[in-house]
């Protein structure tokens, strides 16, 4: 039929280094209070983008979505913070201090998003799962993650099939009581089928020696680049700490 399959090493960074560095940098930026630290965070974010290949269109769309939330903050936080009024809305004052605070939160939020996009977003869920498993996350949680990802697509197709079948029998989506009743029915069926499926899957797992423990295949390789990324991330965290102290 064919020759022996060769073992191919995964190219690029180890998912563990991506995850740990992202976690360290995100936490550092999330808890900082000073502007220099937040701006440094934005710098890290921009640098991390080099570790995600392309997909600029998707990045722009996601970034826009993230900032819709921050527009809400920019509109409301200045009303809650006392200080120098920029604008008066009746008895409410829209303050400069509040605006600066909201903008600071926005900078932090965007910095964390960019770090996540650069370091973690390129990981496929299975790679994330193997990294979590290698980092000591409990087997059972890794198994739930793995099954959720594996069967997500199947469940989405199941839902599409259910809706299609209903449409062919005259179902029209809408806000009517009947339409929502039908949605409830279809969702109930989705969950029922998921339960039936899980029984079959469990049988299949038992037949392959499953004893309740999930064992990871491992196979992750920590290389020099991973160490380099770790060192860079540590330097970044130290920089944030120094900047925080400097402006305190």
């Amino acid at each position, binding site marked *: *039929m*064919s*020759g*022996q*399959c*060769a*073992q*191919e090493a*995964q190219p690029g960074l180890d998912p563990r280094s991506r995850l740990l560095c992202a976690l360290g940098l995100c936490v550092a930026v999330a808890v900082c209070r000073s502007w220099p630290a937040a701006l440094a965070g934005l710098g890290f974010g921009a640098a991390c983008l080099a570790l995600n290949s392309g997909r600029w269109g998707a990045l722009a769309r996601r970034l826009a979505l993230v900032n819709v939330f921050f527009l809400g903050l920019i509109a409301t936080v200045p009303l809650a913070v006392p200080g120098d009024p920029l604008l008066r809305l009746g008895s409410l004052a829209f303050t400069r201090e509040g605006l600066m605070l909201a903008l600071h939160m926005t900078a932090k939020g965007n910095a964390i998003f960019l770090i996540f996009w650069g370091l973690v977003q390129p990981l*496929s*869920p*299975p790679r994330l*799962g193997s990294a979590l498993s290698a980092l000591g996350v409990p087997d059972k949680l890794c198994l739930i993650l*793995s*099954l959720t*990802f*594996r*069967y997500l*697509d*199947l469940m989405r197709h199941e839902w599409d099939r259910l809706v299609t079948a209903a449409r062919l029998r005259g179902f029209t989506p809408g806000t009517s009581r009947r339409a929502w009743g039908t949605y409830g029915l279809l969702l109930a069926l989705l969950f029922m089928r998921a339960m039936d*499926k899980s029984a*079959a*899957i469990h*049988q*299949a*797992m*038992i*037949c*392959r*020696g*499953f*004893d309740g*423990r999930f*064992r*990871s*295949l*491992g*196979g992750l390789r920590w290389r020099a680049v991973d160490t380099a990324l770790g060192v860079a991330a540590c330097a970044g965290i130290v920089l944030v700490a120094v900047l925080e102290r400097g402006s305190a």
Partner: protein
Amino acid sequence: MTLVELEGLTCGYQDRVVLADLNLRLDEGQRLGLAGHTGSGKTTLLKAIMGLVTPTGGVVRILGSECRQNGDFTQARRVLGYLFQNSDDQLFCPTVLEDVAFGPLNLGASQAEARAVALECLSMVGLCGFEERLTHRLSGGEKRLTSLAGVLAMRPKALLLDEPTTGLDPESKARVAEVLRGLDLALLVVSHEWDFLTQVTNRYFTLSHGHLHEAAEAPHLHHHVHSLGDLPHSHD
């Protein structure tokens, strides 16, 4: 060596008897084909052998020792590889390599050993290069072959296959048949596709009304005369 022996096996749900006083023996290297209509109890027979349904009577012996409770079957399940009818039930890991390595890891292999066995089994079914593919994105034929690799990775002495051709196009069927013919294992293949059974097995049984019948030596074969095969067509 006798791998599986059923003696007076009886199975049923509620009032309905599915298998009635059934006897069957699968010896090392034997290739048995089991035909029967949908609903005739073929799947129940395989599940009873694997200890997934509890028989109402009779004895299941695997490698000579009687299996009664769930614990007795744990050993049996190492000897028998069971291929489910629906590949999606059997491919429960996100990637192909992880899925094939699942069995060996559970049987106590180290990560490196499991990886090596998985790669070997993937090459046996001709799926080199599929290691990192996501299982939910595979085609029907690829799913079937991957789940076959996953079963082979447990190093079973016999394979129990439940309708291995359902939902496959002719090319995939041919590939599955080719892989099965190349294996040096005992087989018990359940299928309603007679042509497929004649390709991979050499003794045939039918199951109807809960009873097994051994088939004649030379069963009727349906030959395909030209490319449209058994389909109606005109010649213009």
